[in-house]
């Protein structure tokens, strides 16, 4: 069975048929994706599924990875943080290194193509150093929130962005005015991945047993890094407000450490201290590849929380909705695009607000189940990788005729 056939089992025959029709219009088109790593991180994960699917749909797609010395990655990490508005200080020679490594890679990489997608800021200057006749159109795919960048960093990156024919962002709120046309393509989840696939009851129960969670009592769950912006202490506060009314309730806070956040360990300590006197609160520090364990926890929860104070798109919300769980989420970033009051969960603004909405959901089982069902359908319609792929393909068609109001293909 080929890949598309596997997804057909999830999204239905007609959805895949539509992709094939679009693929016919793009057959043979030469496309190159360039990023900075072949494994690890969200971008590599997306390209890992997207490239085989694009090939199966008839496009000639390849994936190139830039290389550079360790110092280059220190600089690009700072550029990445600076693009998101964090205070970073780079010297002139750091900017020069960024450009120089891009120049070297431009000579090494095979980017002869109709369209080249450059992911994030690391390979941003490739167009600047590539002969003009090699690439039909350069497209910058920015996966992060670039709406309020650090000014010095932006001044540097803006010079590179000037060479692009288009840019793609995940949300309108992540953009800032650019000279080139911009496109919106929200991220997605892979329903067949370890994190989202169906699990056996045996595996689910084994995970609960390993993590010390009682499978017979209701579980509240938040999956996120231990980061202040995810407000884990606010989640504990909400849980404590609920506990007198629902003594059987359990809470699990599951996630990895925030390696790039110096406060991460400090936050984790605070969370553990705050949770120490309650045996029903589990703080689970999981390795980055614990996808099936996360999957099992999400499937075991009665309600999933994502009480972020600041959030990117919030794919953990998408994952929970896909598993039929209502979500109580902070009104920030992409959470507000996914959590709709009384339909897929509730947006909240404080720990008492979260406690109040959870109480409502615990009280009304039928409404909880209906919201879970709506959430699953919502994700199937909007946030599965098939939609993501369709968006890329229609954008490629639009790039050929960017001036039409309605483009018939």
């Amino acid at each position, binding site marked *: 069975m080929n890949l598309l056939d596997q997804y057909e089992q999830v999204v239905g025959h*007609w*959805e895949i048929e539509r992709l094939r*029709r679009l693929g016919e219009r793009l057959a043979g088109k030469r496309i190159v994706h360039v990023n900075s790593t072949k494994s690890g991180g969200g971008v590599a994960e997306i390209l890992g599924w997207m490239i085989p699917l694009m090939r199966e749909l008839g496009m000639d797609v390849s994936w190139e990875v830039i290389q550079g010395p360790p110092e280059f990655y220190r600089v690009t990490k700072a550029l990445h943080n600076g693009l998101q508005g964090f205070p970073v200080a780079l010297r002139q020679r750091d900017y020069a290194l960024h450009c120089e490594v891009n120049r070297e890679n431009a000579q090494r990489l095979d980017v002869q193509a109709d369209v080249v997608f450059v992911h994030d800021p690391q390979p941003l200057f490739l167009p600047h150093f590539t002969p003009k006749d090699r690439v039909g159109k350069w497209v910058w795919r920015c996966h992060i929130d670039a709406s309020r960048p650090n000014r010095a960093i932006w001044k540097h990156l803006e010079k590179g962005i000037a060479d692009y024919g288009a840019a793609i962002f995940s949300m*309108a709120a992540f*953009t800032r*005015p650019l000279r080139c046309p*911009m496109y*919106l393509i929200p991220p997605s989840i892979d329903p067949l991945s370890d994190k989202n696939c169906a699990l056996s009851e045996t595996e689910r129960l084994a995970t609960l047993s390993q993590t010390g969670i009682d499978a017979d009592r209701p579980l509240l769950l938040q999956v996120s890094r231990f980061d202040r912006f995810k407000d884990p202490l606010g989640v504990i506060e909400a849980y404590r407000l609920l506990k007198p009314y629902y003594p059987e309730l359990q809470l699990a806070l599951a996630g990895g450490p925030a390696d790039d956040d110096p406060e991460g360990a400090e936050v984790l300590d605070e969370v553990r201290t705050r949770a120490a006197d309650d045996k029903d609160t589990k703080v689970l520090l999981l390795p980055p590849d614990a996808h099936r364990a996360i999957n099992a926890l999400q499937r075991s929860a009665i309600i999933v929380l994502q009480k972020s104070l600041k959030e990117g798109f919030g794919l953990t919300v998408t994952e929970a909705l896909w598993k039929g769980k209502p979500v109580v989420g902070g009104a920030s970033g992409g959470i507000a695009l996914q959590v709709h009051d009384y339909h897929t969960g509730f947006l909240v603004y404080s720990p008492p607000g979260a406690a109040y909405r959870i109480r409502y959901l615990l009280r009304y089982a039928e409404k909880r189940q209906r919201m879970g069902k*709506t959430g699953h359908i919502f994700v199937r319609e909007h946030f599965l990788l098939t939609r993501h792929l369709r968006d890329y393909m229609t954008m490629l068609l639009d790039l050929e005729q960017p001036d039409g109001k*309605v483009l018939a293909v």
Partner: protein
Amino acid sequence: MDSPEPFKVMDCSLVRCPTGRSCANLRELRDAIQTVPEAVIEHHMMRCALEDHFALYEFPNDLALWCWNALGDHLLAEHLGVVDPYQHPDIATLREHLLDYIDDRLWSLDRVPWCRGGLELHLVQSRLVSYDTGERISTPAALVDAVDRMSSRSLFYHVHEARRRSGGTTDDFSLWFEDLGVDPEAVRRLRAIDFYFLNLQQLREELLAVFQECLMDPLDRKGTRR
């Protein structure tokens, strides 16, 4: 009933292009509506239907929803909620109409309503990429099955976009029925569906209800594929 011209099922996809511009208060919204390209107004008043899947949303367009949820200006939201863009001959007229409502509201207020950070309205324009699915329907009864399973994007194309193409007079389904000589009552009832105030799932249900009630013949339920 056989048709010499089978119904051609189309699908579409929205290419959404952010403008990089956002509004945090009513005056900014007013200025934006006055100056943005027509495709922005078209997106937030019409094509936003492709993103709404919830039966209970009070408002059929982004502007009314934002005024209600983010600005807390319920009076203006109610006014914008009843503006039907498909009743306007073009976007320029619609723009004037929207500006008139907002100016009226600003005139009557002591303070300009604003939203808290994070709830800004980010302005987007969109283009519709339409494509032939290859599916052909040869009988009205087969269309019932097709509508039942076709994507919500196809429904949008054959109803909302069809209204734009036809100058507000018809959707593609009733036009095809008319060509086939199907009962005029079915054609009339299809065209009377208040599609702008329905989400796409509700629209599907209404279409199916009309089909069920008006198509009396025990017809075969097979479409044909090219």
